């Protein structure tokens, strides 16, 4: 049995224990250790990209060991084409958020301990194949994120952290009841009750009525996390209050756990539920796309604008997933990655001027292209990728999703397409107000351009933003087979 996946999952946690041994005053050492741990974790996980066999939809590098035998709970990890890219996205963003934390000075050690613990929680969530283990990772992750927002956040941080915690908790507790119900109603020949995802998928036949309830319980937990309209209200608060790196993680990885939950658990396990709730989910996705876009336009605060744009972009992902054909689902998956890269980059970019000016209000800026040319260039490229300009990553995802969605529901696709236009409006308008025109505010005259550490956090993201845009097949090919299997499970 290979221990590869466990190694990837637990390196950050070990790193956080290591950090505890470093004296709190040695800030340089703390940053160095955190960065080293994240880089090592990324390097350890990177070969998975080639090692995972993309021609098979089976789980690979499976690890399974009894954990709590009297309750039938096992430690069970595995990876397939769907989780592969999300795992790599997570480890890839690891070093980037360490760079992105250069503005943090308060309680640095505790900050990185929380960050590293969070990383372990997220990786574990993507790799768990035991429903119970999945739930544990899913919940454990709440605590470090709660502290990241609550301690290192802005002025309203306590409220935002509490809201984040309670929303997620309520949803996930109902999911726990669903998980329990599954456990007691699954009878695996020779084993009996089980939390084992692969066994449940192979043997379980849930009654149609039960599937509706189960889907509802799981979908609520995931929809809150995504977040889908109307469960999105925690997101702007959390994003605006969180420190830059916290926002990057939140947008980059945490939200994907919701969509991942749908594609991995809620949809394949309860096809009847998907069938029944599909119209509702599509409607909510479309509302999310348009609503998120409209609200973004009127935001005076750059970070809040990006936060609401997440609601819109994740709406596209949900639209793709519930369109239920291979183009749309592929688009949804690649869009999950795209959103992690582009929105992560946008949050970093907003953080750059925030660190210098301590304000994110669009009206405070204007014409700063004159003093920060490189910054302007990068911001423009990332914004264009988020809008969906051909040649950059966003286009690939949104195009596939819209094509697929059109097959499933032309109305939904047509309304959603306005989301792309809205994105162009809110992002380009923000670009114009922040970067172009005359430099009116004197405080902006002394702004300095990107620092090396900022380059270090942005360049890797740019590489992939372009790579996915130019040659998406490198990535699409990884999950094509898995998606076919997914569709046979969901569509009867």
């Amino acid at each position, binding site marked *: 049995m290979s221990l590869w996946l466990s190694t990837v999952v637990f390196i950050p946690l070990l790193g956080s224990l290591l950090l505890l041994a470093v004296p709190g005053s040695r800030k340089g050492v703390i940053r160095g250790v955190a960065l080293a741990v994240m880089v090592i974790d990324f390097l350890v996980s990177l070969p998975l990209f080639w090692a995972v066999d993309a021609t098979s939809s089976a789980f690979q590098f499976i690890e399974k060991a009894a954990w709590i035998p*009297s309750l039938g709970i096992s430690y069970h990890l595995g990876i397939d084409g769907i989780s592969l890219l999300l795992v790599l996205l997570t480890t890839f963003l690891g070093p980037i958020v360490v760079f992105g934390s250069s503005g943090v000075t308060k309680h640095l050690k505790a900050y990185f301990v929380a960050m590293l613990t969070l990383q372990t929680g997220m990786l574990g969530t993507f790799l768990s194949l035991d429903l119970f283990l999945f739930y544990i990772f899913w*919940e454990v992750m709440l605590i470090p994120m709660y502290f990241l927002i*609550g301690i290192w956040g802005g002025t309203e941080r306590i409220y935002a952290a509490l809201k984040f915690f309670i929303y997620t908790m309520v949803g996930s507790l*109902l999911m726990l*009841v669903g998980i*329990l119900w599954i456990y007691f109603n699954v009878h695996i020949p020779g084993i009996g009750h089980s939390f084992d995802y692969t066994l449940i998928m192979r043997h379980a036949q849930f009654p149609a009525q039960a599937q509706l309830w189960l889907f509802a319980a799981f979908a609520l937990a995931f929809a809150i996390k995504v977040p889908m309209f109307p469960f999105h209200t925690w997101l702007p608060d959390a994003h605006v209050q969180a420190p830059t790196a916290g926002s990057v993680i939140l947008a980059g990885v945490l939200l994907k756990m919701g969509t991942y939950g749908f594609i991995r658990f809620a949809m394949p396990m309860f096809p009847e539920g998907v069938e029944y709730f599909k119209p509702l989910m599509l409607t909510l996705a479309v509302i999310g796309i348009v609503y998120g876009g409209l609200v973004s336009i009127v935001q005076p605060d750059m970070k809040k604008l990006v936060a609401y744009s997440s609601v819109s972009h994740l709406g596209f992902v949900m639209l793709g997933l519930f369109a239920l054909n291979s183009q749309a689902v592929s688009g949804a998956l690649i869009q999950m990655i795209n959103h992690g890269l582009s929105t992560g980059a946008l949050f970093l970019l907003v953080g750059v001027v925030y660190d210098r000016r301590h304000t994110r209000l669009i009206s405070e800026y204007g014409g700063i292209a004159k003093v920060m040319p490189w910054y302007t260039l990068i911001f423009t490229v990332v914004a264009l990728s988020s809008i969906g300009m051909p040649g950059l990553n966003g286009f690939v995802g949104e195009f596939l999703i819209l094509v697929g969605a059109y097959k499933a529901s032309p109305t939904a696709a047509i309304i959603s397409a306005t989301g792309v236009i809205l994105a162009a409006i809110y992002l380009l308008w923000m670009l114009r107000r922040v970067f172009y025109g005359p430099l009116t505010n004197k405080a902006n005259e002394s702004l300095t351009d990107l620092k090396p550490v900022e380059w270090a956090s942005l360049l890797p993201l740019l590489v992939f933003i372009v790579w996915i845009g130019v040659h998406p097949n490198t990535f699409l090919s990884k999950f094509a087979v898995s998606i076919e299997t997914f569709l046979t499970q969901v569509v009867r």
Partner: protein
Amino acid sequence: MFDTLIANMQIARVLPEILLLIVAFLAILTDVILPRGRSTRGVQIVSVLGLLAVIAVSIFRRHDTGAAFSGMVVIDGYTTFFRVLLSALTLLVISVSERYLEVTRIRIAEYYLMLLFALFGMLLMVMGQDLLIVFLGIETMSISLYALVGISRHKHASNEGALKYFLLGAFTTAFFLYGIALTFGVTGSTNILDITLFLRNAGADTPIIAWAGAGLILIAFAFKAALVPFHWWSPDAYEGAPTTITAFMSTAPKAAAFAAFIRVFYTGFETMADGWTTILWWMAVVTMTFGNLLALRQDSVKRMLAFSSITHAGYLVVAFLTFGQQGAASILFYLVAYGIMNVGAFLVAIAVNRNEDDEKGYHFDDYRGLVFRRPGMAIGMLILMLSLAGIPPTAGFFGKYYIFSSAVNAGFVGLAVIGVLNSAVSVFYYLRLIVNMFLKDRDEATEGRIFWTGEMAQVVLVCVILVLLIGLFPDTLLTAAMGSVAMFQ
């Protein structure tokens, strides 16, 4: 004749209880011998050592199972489980009380003696196989507790709490006795096994009087376990009692009440189980919800912990009404987890309390920025709070998980949903403390001195480690709990 009587006594099987009585009397002697002022420390040491011996004997003699005193009491895995749990909880409370007694000027050795006698009563409750023994146990425990609640003689709240507790407790006694009388009238016996036999034979023709008897006994237990709507004594008693006693009362006597409750209803009135489901269902719902609503509104950490203990009792009722082995095992598991985390949390509360006068102290604001003053203590409290809120990977999470899992297994999905939603509500008030400890800045103008003795630190550390260990590796305790309830079919 006399020989068989002696043989039926099986006196060796109740060795732990005999030992406990000897310890109690030794403690009285110590109090008399040592000079005033130093005697409490001596009594404490005798009690601690004695309790360690009681635990050791209970564990070593766990294989000597069977009835004793002609079937009046029974020693089985279940008894052993609770002997260890209850003695350990008493031990935890006693071992940290000395400093608290000094600060609150309750330096009287009777404090320890009452705790030992209360423990004796509780042990009778869990081992009693005859309703009369259970009754004797409840009374021995309760009378000691009445005295303990009122032990701060100079405090108004303490006296008020004790009086209310005593008056309502007297009612409970009447309920219980009348319940026994009715049961005896129908079945001709007070022995639980005989009652079961009779009721089994009666089958569907169970006389209405038997239902009445069981109902009265149920109410008495509900009083003792502070289940809504029979909880009215608890807010005042919990608040008026010295905080160490509040910690004790919200854990050990509750555990003992549930232990006896299970034994009587899972064995004695087993055939009637289904008849109580609806009533218990509602009782569970209102107990969980009401406890939460009360706890949400508190500004005092002591009151918050005390009220939330009502909610935790509600979770236990959820498992209780499944009337199955798994439900019983999950109660045992939860009682252990809850005992550990609650005692730990109360200890930190005692340490942080700024105002020695209980009525004004224990404010949430006292915890502001605690992590900057006492990082270890704050992190310990964080883990205890997360455990109380039921967040993995802690003992509290597994306890709740196991309870709701038994409910779902028995088909009570709706109740499990109500339970988890209550659990989510409880996050509010537990997080509030975390917010104060970690997210708010110190307020040096108002913060008081923290009194933190080595004993307290050690006990809290033990609690925290156990909470995490049980949370990560619950299997040992699960197996033990499962084994202890093997006799309930």
